[in-house]
């Protein structure tokens, strides 16, 4: 995300906070978020896709709200629907005023097409409202649809054929199809929030929520592209509350720290961080370690910087988004690392995958052994986290690396806990144990980043060999 856009978000949030305090906050967030998802969507080679992708996000969000949420206030929801449609139409109308085409990457499509899409969404919602007895199936269908779209986006072959399809639909050269043409901004995070909502609805623990609150939650503009992944009930509690004024100072601090982390530290480290090009150019083990370290810190400062920015802007609006990082590189083991790295993602996986699958395995008539269960659940969870970044061999290996690492740590910790406690009886010994744990964990994570950063397992393996002086 470009600095000027972040500063615009911050200025808008600050001005709103100063001028309007908490009056009309939900509406402000709703309108700003709708505009922002169009504004942030980069230009794409598929004609009109930079307009249709955010519109598809909105349609999906509205659809999921419709099938999952108990809507307490129908009139208000119709008004919210009208506001969203109005904002989209206004953005679409900028096709006639080039000077105002600042919120879309390219000229918006013909307005008749947008109206047809609106009609399609309206008809779908009407049909769904008549089929109330199938509502449980709709939830499953919504879940499958969201996961299906997510998989399509993250699997290179599926993404390619989707691009191919859309190119042929728009009469463009299909042989120029690239998977990068299907860069649907923010969908990963949107999908996770929608899955959370659908699953919570299925389990009967979703609070009632109006459409404006729901859209504000799913596409909340400070957290749209890089998280954190908040929970609906927590988000709407803040949204409905009014105790926010004292946060302005803290919000400003958080925002400045985030900007420094992202645009000074991370962007500087990016100049020397591991990538496909320099991986083949660096010959010595020493410099290879340097660029691997640079990558490890770059990804941390980049991601945690964005989180700070999101938390800062959100706090200006009175929303206290959950923390995502808590000094993860200073943790003495891999389990603690994952409890403090991209925390909202790991919590999400714990809630919606790890815990249910563990419960399911335990429910077997002849349960498998505990170590085997730990191995299966850890590896499966980490593989899924890897797939969240992309269904590729490198992310698979990265997931495996961490899954196996977590399993080994679990077993090692079980086997040596008593001995370690007996040995580390002085503060110096405890510190030594802690520091060696931190160093070991950091290096394990850093080596894992090699698979994450590079595009092929062969290239990653070459880097690993170079790190240890084997050419």
């Amino acid at each position, binding site marked *: 995300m470009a600095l000027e856009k972040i500063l615009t978000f911050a200025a808008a949030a600050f001005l709103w906070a100063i001028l309007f305090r908490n009056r009309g906050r939900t509406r402000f967030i709703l309108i700003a978020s709708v505009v922002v998802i169009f504004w942030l969507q980069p230009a794409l080679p598929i004609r009109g896709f930079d307009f249709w992708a955010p519109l598809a996000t909105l349609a999906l969000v509205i659809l999921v709200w419709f099938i999952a949420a108990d809507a307490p206030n129908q009139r208000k929801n119709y008004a919210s629907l009208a506001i969203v449609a109005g904002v989209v139409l206004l953005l679409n109308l900028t096709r006639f005023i080039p000077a105002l085409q600042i919120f879309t990457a390219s000229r918006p499509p013909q307005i008749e097409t947008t109206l047809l899409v609106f009609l399609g969404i309206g008809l779908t919602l009407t049909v769904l409202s008549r089929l109330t007895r199938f509502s449980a199936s709709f939830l499953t269908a919504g879940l499958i649809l969201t996961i299906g779209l997510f998989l399509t986006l993250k699997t290179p072959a599926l993404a390619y054929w989707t691009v191919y399809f859309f190119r042929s639909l728009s009469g463009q050269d299909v042989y120029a199809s690239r998977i990068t043409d299907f860069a649907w901004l923010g969908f990963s995070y949107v999908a996770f929030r929608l899955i959370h909502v659908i699953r919570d609805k299925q389990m009967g623990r979703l609070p009632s929520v109006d459409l404006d609150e729901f859209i504000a939650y799913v596409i909340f503009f400070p957290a749209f592209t890089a998280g954190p992944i908040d929970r609906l009930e927590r988000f709407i509690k803040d949204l409905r509350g009014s105790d926010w004024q004292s946060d302005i*100072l803290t919000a*400003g601090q958080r925002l400045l720290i985030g900007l420094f982390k992202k645009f000074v530290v991370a962007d500087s480290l990016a*100049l020397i961080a591991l990538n496909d090009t320099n991986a083949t150019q660096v010959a*010595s083990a020493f410099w290879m370690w340097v*660029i691997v370290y640079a990558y490890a810190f770059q990804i941390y400062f980049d991601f945690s910087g964005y989180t700070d920015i999101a938390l800062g802007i959100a706090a200006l609006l009175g929303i206290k988004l959950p923390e995502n990082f808590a000094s993860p590189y200073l943790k003495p083991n891999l389990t603690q690392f994952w409890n403090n790295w991209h925390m909202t993602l790991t919590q999400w996986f714990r809630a919606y995958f790890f815990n249910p699958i563990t419960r399911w395995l335990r429910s077997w008539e002849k349960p498998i052994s505990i170590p085997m269960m730990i191995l299966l659940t850890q590896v499966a969870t980490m593989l899924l986290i890897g797939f969240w970044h992309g269904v590729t061999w490198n992310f698979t290996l990265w997931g495996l690396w961490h899954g196996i690492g977590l399993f080994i740590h679990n077993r090692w910790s079980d086997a040596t806990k008593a001995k370690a406690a007996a040995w580390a009886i002085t503060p110096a010994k405890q510190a030594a144990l802690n520091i060696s744990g931190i160093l070991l964990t950091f290096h394990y994570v850093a080596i894992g980043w090699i698979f994450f950063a590079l595009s092929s397992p062969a290239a990653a393996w070459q880097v690993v060999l170079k790190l240890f002086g084997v050419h």
Partner: protein
Amino acid sequence: MNQEIKPLNVLIKGLLLFALFNLAIAAWQPGVGQFSLYNILYPGRERLPFGENPRQSYNLSLFDLDAMFASHVIAGTPKADDEFRVVIVGDSSVWGTLLRPEETLAGQLNAEELNACGKTVRAYNLGYPTISLTKDVILLSYAMNYDPDLILWMTTLEAFPLEKQTSTPLAAYNEEKVRELATSHQLRIEAGDSNFVKKSFWDKTFIGDRRAWADFLRLQIYGAMWSATGIDQAYPTGYEKAQTDFEADESYHDLTSPLSEDDLAINALESGFRVAGETPMLLVNEPMLISSGANSDIRYNFFYPRWAYDDYREIMLELSERNNWMYVDLWDIVPANEFTNSAIHLTPAGENMLAKKLAPYVLENCR
């Protein structure tokens, strides 16, 4: 006693402090360029920083001469008693477009392992990829800080047109340095030369000058990649060979035949020799591509119609004899197939021919 913190006050105070910081930078103009991680954390660069694609070349173009020289290996290499120090100034042909550091003229001279009067010859590449005599004089004036025993000044007619002297970015962004040279070494510069980039007070603030600050920092950071890879230039897998077929065009910079000394920046050459002072300096008319393609009876190459270049060579010969300058004309020593993407860019083999031709001049100038 807990006093309530007012966010607006904090914002105003923060903005005031930032404004003060900016004003202080503008008023003070700290010469941070002299501080460098090169030659301390990283080895110095073999040639001056230049690069249009930093992400690939781990190098970038900047206009801070202090920072540029501080990053060069010459700044971190104390001259040993047994070193015969040769500095080479010139354009991109000296800097070495498409060449690795060891393939440039300086690299090839070093590879020759010459011994001059019992001293080891060590050549330093101080070329820079724009063509202007004034730019060369600026670099020469910096080079003198490093106590050279011999200077090789490689040049070509394209460096001589008057309008090219200060339009080159390195000169345009360093008016103060150029004016210093005008005062100290009679470099002729017009009082109201519009090529110079004038910095207002606001341009000198931290915000106004943020590009220069960022360039300085990026130069330091890219030092790590220079150390790690030895790469300081993006090497394309293929390139378009220098043009050999031309239109029947005899024009050259709005000049008319015959070329006279008044048409050229001879004063910059004279200033260069004044800058060199007692240090021997060999002026070299560098090799260029002599085309045999369409209309090659009219033009030698992309740069030069024959009439202009022939006149230039005569002027150079006369000038050097008149001023008793050491001068060697090597314009035709490299065959056309040893040029790369320009009429003055040599292949490694071409550079080797040039180095072998210049080696005797290096040896006979030792003392």
